[in-house]
């Protein structure tokens, strides 16, 4: 083919007639001004949203801190108009209720999670379990108390730590189950296949490969659930009720008696017209928040370790 080039068009400047000053970012232009103002607005709103957190922490340290002493942990709650006192029984009661609730939830949650992680995706049962767990995540905590009242308190004929623990365990289950499933699913498939290739049975794979590898993640779920459970008040109000006495006397554990808890103590004392009780409520709130935050942060730190 003979090269016959048409004459080239005259070169034109594509930027001709364009004012470069137009392209510069300037706050005098309404568009950029609106953008900057909105940026300022979200910054302020985010900072305002954090004010309550710092206010709560400051008030807890200020009003709860100066009452903090060893007496709080060794003495019983004071009667009206009485001075001094503590909430040792409420701390022990909270620990008992949480321990029982954890004992109930952990086996159910983890074994169900193992089933979910191993089940085929189209399994009807697995879908049902997941749906049920999601329904429970949004379950109002007071309704867990209503259930435990109807099912346990009316059945056993009295308020008890057991009824409280069952109510709290309903609220802990979804956290433990769903995080455990995620943690087990995050174990590399290769490791599982290697175990199966060695001739391990499913059970051996689960116990020797999946659970040990997923352990930090599972523990995170348990810690977060405990942190949530420890602060729950509504499910305890009419299941564990409250008590002015120690849950353990003469080395005997009274699980079938009304049991004190920090959360219910705060609720009861916050509404009282006595300064001593209000001060104790603040001190109890400080202890409860410390307990919850330490558990929560430990759990999160453990979880971060697994991701890496």
């Amino acid at each position: 083919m003979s090269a016959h080039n048409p004459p080239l068009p005259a070169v034109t400047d594509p930027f001709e007639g364009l004012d470069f000053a137009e392209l510069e970012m300037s706050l005098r232009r309404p568009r950029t001004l609106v953008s900057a103002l909105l940026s300022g607005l979200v910054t302020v709103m985010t900072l305002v949203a954090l004010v309550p957190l710092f206010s709560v922490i400051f008030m807890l340290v200020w009003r709860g801190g100066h009452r903090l002493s060893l007496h709080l942990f060794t003495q019983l709650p004071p009667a009206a108009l009485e001075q001094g006192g503590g909430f040792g029984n409420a701390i022990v009661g909270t620990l008992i209720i949480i321990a029982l609730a954890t004992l109930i939830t952990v086996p159910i949650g983890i074994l169900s999670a193992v089933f979910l992680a191993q089940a085929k995706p189209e399994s009807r049962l697995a879908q049902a379990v997941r749906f049920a767990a999601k329904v429970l995540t949004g379950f109002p905590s007071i309704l867990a108390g209503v259930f435990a009242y109807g099912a346990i308190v009316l059945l056993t004929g009295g308020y008890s730590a057991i009824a409280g623990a069952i109510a709290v365990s309903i609220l802990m289950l979804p956290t433990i189950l769903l995080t455990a499933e995620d943690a087990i699913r995050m174990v590399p498939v290769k490791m599982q296949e290697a175990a199966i290739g060695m001739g391990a049975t499913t059970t051996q794979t689960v116990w020797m490969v999946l659970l040990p590898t997923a352990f930090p993640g599972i523990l995170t779920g348990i810690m977060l659930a405990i942190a949530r459970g420890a602060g729950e008040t509504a499910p305890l109000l009419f299941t564990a009720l409250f008590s002015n006495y120690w849950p353990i006397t003469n080395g005997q554990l009274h699980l079938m008696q009304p049991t004190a808890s920090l959360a219910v103590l705060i609720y009861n004392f916050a509404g009282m017209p006595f300064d001593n009780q209000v001060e104790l409520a603040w001190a109890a709130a400080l202890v409860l928040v410390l307990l919850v935050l330490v558990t929560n942060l430990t759990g999160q730190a453990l979880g971060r370790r697994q991701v890496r």
Partner: protein
Amino acid sequence: MPDVTTISQPPSRLQLFTDKTFRHLCQGFAWLTVISIAFILVKIILAGVPAMRQYGFGFITGTTWDPNTGQFGILPEIWGTLYSSILALIVGTAFGVAGAIFLTEGYLGEFVFDLLKLLHLHFHPFWGKLPLRIEDLLKNLIELLAAIPSVVYGLWGIFVVIPLIRPACNWLHLKMGWLPVFGTDLSGPGMLPAVLVLSIMILPTITAISRDALVSVPPKLRMAAYGLGATRWETILAVTLPTAARGVFGGVVLAFGRALGETMALAMLVGNSNKISVSLFSPANTLAALLANNFPEAQKKEVAVLMYAALVLLAITLLVNILGAFILQRASVQSTGGK
């Protein structure tokens, strides 16, 4: 080296037996989870049935609650539950979505980076990581709001929020009392302190879910908008937020479910009075607070009626939660391209 045959051998009969047992055990526990949740729901529903038969639909439209005369109606509580939740949702959504935008747009990271640049530390092996670390810290701080127990928020509300807003509220009532929302004065517990505390409690849910939705908007879309010359906020309002809208909306609906079922902060702050009022400063009541306050001292007859109220609360929250989960599921299907 040990003999190969001793390491690898077919599972023994005992191992096979344990395997089978364990698998059935896991399946059994999965069934247990489903059955116990079904049992919980059925138990609450059945407990409400006797009172439902006796009081019927009039229970929902009645406005008095008097155990002495046996008159029970929960319209004020239903009104209070919805009113407080919707108001808290408006405040919580505004601040929650603003927080999510602040977190995903990297304002804080940029600020710290610029600060480090002034000090010539922005590529320093330790200080250079500071912007990311601070953003992470902020995210965790907002999530910590959710970790504080609601009874502690209630205590804080009684002794901090109410005394703080009371003068302003009474001034508003005095000057603008002709507006129905300022129609009464704040004499202690009331709707506004409850709404404020409630909105703080649902804010972390909205921020966390909105943040996830905003982060999963493909960066290409944002870059395309910037490339066309859009400002940062033109991009956010026209591209990022609409793309993430369904995820954000799902988060808002889930937060609404949380607000409807929240008990302790409301029981301590809302004032527990059976009134239907649009005034922000008037005491009111909610279903969950009604249960928390009346259950511990209720007689047998009142317990049956409270079970009916619990049933109404269950119906409202289940409806809202299932709706929220459904929207979120649709949103994730949309963002993964229908996979």
